[in-house]
């Protein structure tokens, strides 16, 4: 298993794009270290000759002809946007 059962919660939260308060960071640190210690038990098993399972059913590519067809109406698609103008979703400036 991993060499450590201690996670850098602040760094991982940054990767996950979630701002945490100091209180949350401290709370999750203890709770998640406990979970990581628990999952250490998977290290007991010899899995060197075992294939990983990503899906319970074997998945195959599903292809269809690339034909135009009706989809969600434009207005309906952006009706839930928190900010929109002229039929487009508004976002903060990305480039100066």
């Amino acid at each position, binding site marked *: 298993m*991993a060499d450590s059962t201690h996670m850098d919660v602040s760094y991982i939260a940054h990767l996950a*794009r979630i701002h945490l308060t100091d209180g*949350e960071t401290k709370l999750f640190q203890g*709770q998640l270290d*406990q979970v990581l210690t*628990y999952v250490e*038990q998977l290290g007991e*098993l010899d899995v060197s000759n075992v294939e990983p*399972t990503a899906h*319970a059913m074997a998945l195959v590519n599903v292809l269809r002809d690339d034909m135009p067809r009706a989809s969600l109406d434009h207005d309906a698609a952006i009706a839930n946007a928190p900010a929109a103008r002229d039929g487009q979703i508004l976002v903060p400036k990305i480039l100066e």
Partner: protein
Amino acid sequence: MANLNTKTISELSDLLEQGKCTSVEIVNDVLAAIDARDGKINAYLTIDRTSALAQAEAADKARAAGKKGALLGIPLAIKDLLNVKGQPCTCSSKILEGYTAPYDATAIAKLREAGAVFLGRVNMDEFAMGSSTESSAFKKTRNPWNTDHVPGGSSGGSAASVAADEAVAALGSDTGGSIRQPAAFCGCVGLKPTYGMISRYGLTAFASSLDQIGPITKTVEDSAILLEAMAGKDEMDSTSIDLSVPDFAKDLTDDHSLKGMKLGLPKEYFVEGMDSEVEKAVRDAVEHCKKLGAEIVQVSLPHSKYAIAVYYIIATAEASANLARFDGIRYGLRKDGADPIELYGKTRAAGFGPEVKRRIILGTYVLSSGYYDAYYLRAQKVRTLIRNDFVEAFKQCDAILAPVTPTPAYKIGEKTNDPLKMYLDDILTTPVNLAGICGLSVPCGFSKAGLPIGLQILGDSFKEVNILKVGHAYEQTTTWHKQRPEFS
């Protein structure tokens, strides 16, 4: 006819067919029950009375015009993560507060075609992450059998609404036990179909390789009716399986004999620390099945004890990717920031509750550079071992009998401060999702304190017919499912 809300789908379907009641009357009785006691139970997040009555009227008109069907005019409660066009779909999260579904999930579209009435949205753990419905951002749902106790989760609102006769039947979703466990805690029937049986299109994704939609009902027959209506290949979900859907409900015979069936008893499912009342109720149910003619065989699922560790790695990894879409840009909550990165961080901080944040962080960690092989890849390999255990077991039996949960419903607040403790309670349900097989929860007794206990019946992939047959025979020769909670 009074109290139509207390009846089953099959009973109501007969009454409707015979012209002894209307869909509008059924909906009115369900609404009356909600008005009378949902203030105490808190199963529903939103109820669309006007639309429900309009749908019921339309169903009555369609019937008068010659349309038929077991679900025509039957009102259903829908877990708040399944998209029903024009209704909210919040996943019990602040990040989706105010969201209106622009389309029907495929399962919903099929039920709509069959004439079902979508009456309201029921509470759940936020994004289906939890086992008690306490992680909902909006309200605490209570167990109708004892309102100091949790209804289970994550489909706690679904189970509570059915148990309290505030719904004729409900839909839930099951990623690690989220249909079977609340059904057991509330004394209902809950079915997790085989992975791929029902299209997941329009089901808000938690862990895509584990999620399945399924019914929570008052009887096994009702679960069979709903399964049949929702099952089948859908081009919008490439993991849905192309197979002819059996006539599940008609296949349930009235002889209630289990002669010729082999039922497996896995020793690993009678775990240390299991409540003695749960163990006794399940062992009594096994004896009962033997009396109905089944042959009981011992089976072994040796990797069961690793299921929780595997589940909480795989499910959180998939969740961390699936929930990346809630970024404040296209829908839902937005907290403005100087740039998009700050906007994402602030939006997700304000929109997600603690359990969802914990799981996204854990999932991000197990997928992160340097830890992927040690956690995620290893978990996927152990998943193979868990799946192989079932493959071997089903060579020896037609179905497996087990408890659903190690204990009956616990008290509200009892486990909220200890996430790992809450996770460990999923030990008997998560292996089923990891293996992709089907599982049914059927009422099999009560604790001395009056809380329901569930019997879990597991079947091989696409062998729903077997578990429905066992469940139906057991249920129809016992009376547990007929008991109802009392309301003061």
